[in-house]
């Protein structure tokens, strides 16, 4: 897939799920950046071309379809390596307090591929606390939303990796649990942290693959997961008042 001579054989399709026409897609980035040609005076060895044919066969004739456009993602990877500035994204959510512990977060625009981008529509999430916290329970607790985000990220990763590895998925379910000592947030014990003490994700996957291959899928999805990284590694967070 990193072989630029593959692209004339089978051009990847040109959209990642109907992006609005004003938006720059991953593949525009690929075209703009252009893939570098580093052909030496000697031609590439014959088996490199053979690789391309194999790749083409597996992507055109294999019935594996998890709804992931692997070609586009791999093409974007190559293109963005060449123009790393376009790989700099800024995600954004805006938030508004409603009443009590209830608030609404709107997610609409973000920056990426060197331009302002917009979701197909504005998405609204809400946060609140349950009644056992003496709240009105209008929405999930934000820590639960974090768990949901982790599941969403890892599941997307499982699908993407499975597509890339030619594994047909039939069902992917997961249970995410986070252990939390709330004495921390209540200020009840200075030695208890505010955040999770442990987070567990248990996947149940039905797919055309061996147990080992499924384990490898799940492991690889963690390795490439933004939310997994955000939860497991320290991040500088600055909170200011406008």
């Amino acid at each position, binding site marked *: 897939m*990193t072989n630029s001579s593959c692209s004339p054989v089978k051009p990847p399709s040109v959209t990642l799920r109907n992006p609005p026409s004003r938006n720059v897609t991953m593949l525009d980035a690929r075209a703009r950046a252009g893939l570098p040609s580093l052909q030496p*005076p000697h031609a590439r060895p014959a088996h490199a071309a053979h690789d391309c044919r194999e790749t083409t066969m597996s992507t055109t004739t294999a019935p594996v379809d998890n709804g992931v456009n692997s070609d586009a993602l791999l093409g974007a990877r190559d293109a963005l390596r060449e123009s790393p500035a376009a790989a700099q994204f800024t995600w954004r959510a805006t938030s508004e307090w409603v009443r009590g512990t209830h608030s609404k977060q709107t997610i609409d625009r973000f920056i990426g591929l060197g331009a302002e981008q917009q979701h197909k529509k504005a998405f609204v999430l809400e946060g609140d606390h349950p009644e056992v916290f003496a709240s009105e329970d209008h929405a999930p607790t934000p820590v639960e939303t974090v768990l949901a985000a982790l599941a969403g990220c890892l599941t997307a990763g499982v699908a993407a990796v499975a597509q890339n590895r030619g594994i047909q998925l039939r069902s992917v379910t997961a249970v995410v649990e986070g252990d939390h000592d709330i004495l921390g947030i209540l200020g009840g014990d200075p030695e208890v942290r505010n955040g999770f003490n*442990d987070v567990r994700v248990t996947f149940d996957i039905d797919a055309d693959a061996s147990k080992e291959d499924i384990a490898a899928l799940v492991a690889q999805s963690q390795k490439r997961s933004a939310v997994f990284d955000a939860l497991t590694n320290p991040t500088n967070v600055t909170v200011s008042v406008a």
Partner: protein
Amino acid sequence: MTVQRTDVVIIGAGHSGLAMSRRLTERSIDHVVLERGAVAHSWRAERWPGLRLLTPNWQTRLPGGGYQGDDPDGHLAAAEVAELLAHYARQIDAPVQQQTTVEQVRADGDGAYSIQSDQGGWNARSVVIASGANSVPHLPDCAAALPSTITQVTTRDYRGPTTLPEGGVLVVGAAATGAQLADELARAGRRVVLSVGEHVRLPRDYRGRDVFWWMDRSGVLDERFDEVDDIVRARHVPSPQLVGSAERRAVDLAALRELGVELVGRLGTVRDGVALFSGGLANTVRLADLKAERLLDRFDAWAAATEAPVDAAVDAPHRLEPTQVDPSPRLMLDLQKQGITTVIWATGFRPRYDWLDVPVLDAKGRVRHEGGVVDAPGLYLLGASLLRRRRSTYIDGAAQDSLELAEHLAAHLQSSPRESALAAGPALV
């Protein structure tokens, strides 16, 4: 200073530069090898004395030379590697100019290269960069955030357990070097915390044979750079957790844990004297186990399919024990409170190209090349990780890589003869 004229300047007299010298001599191509120190300088001056090659002696093969001793299954120590290469340089009569540091290489307008050194200049039609992939220790940014009371040591400067201040040691990085130093320090009685990121687990022996025997015979090491799925990634895979030792001991995470080494996740950052580690250790360990299993599967498949009677000559297939780690490893380490006095950065090296004044570096400072043929006519790279094949990462790769690149280089010299040289003659300028 004088400017000397030659066809090829090879920069660096390590195994790669010397192998290329041998190939050019075979073709009667005029060349010189410039070496900043003595032959095999980095093996003499920039490695710790306890270091041994990961590869067995029989695999230290060089064109027209290599290991000739009576311990084919042993592993050479750093000083022995230096000695072997010095002997090799004499054996092949390599035109090495020692104590000569290259300060600048630039392209002349006429398709030749101008090489400046502290010992004068050269003009050559081709330049082979064999200055090594492991020149400058690479440290994460958070090194700057360590308290000044902590001694920081890179693996280039580390010389052994007794040279460190008393106290506990945090070793950052669990590739071959980090694993070996954790092993060495724990055996010396130190408290060791090992920060483990992405790593490669390999058994020293499999089915009664050294793992390099398997990689050599089964064709793993012959996998070419243009057959690898993601070459950028493949070239940055850490070295395996192996050590060369007489007792063939393991230095994988399970072995280190048994020695009392505390395993923690990848170092995230250092805040207020506290090192913060990733909570993803279990997954990096799982990934390494899975990759090791896949490699063993590949060995077994090869052994079963090959016509040579391999299966009968080796032990029965078996699998590695899954690596056990603490399910909730330490996320924070208050260095001073925990008695950690030294941090060893085993976080890898980068090549140094600040002398290379030819526009062939990518945004990350890496030489753009296709199997060692650099993106500038007449310029070649040798001795880099997975340069042309997996074998390129090891000394053993130099023989074939230098053969192929010398062929390319000779074709280049032939296709662009130095016309002015005929008029001016090959005299000193």
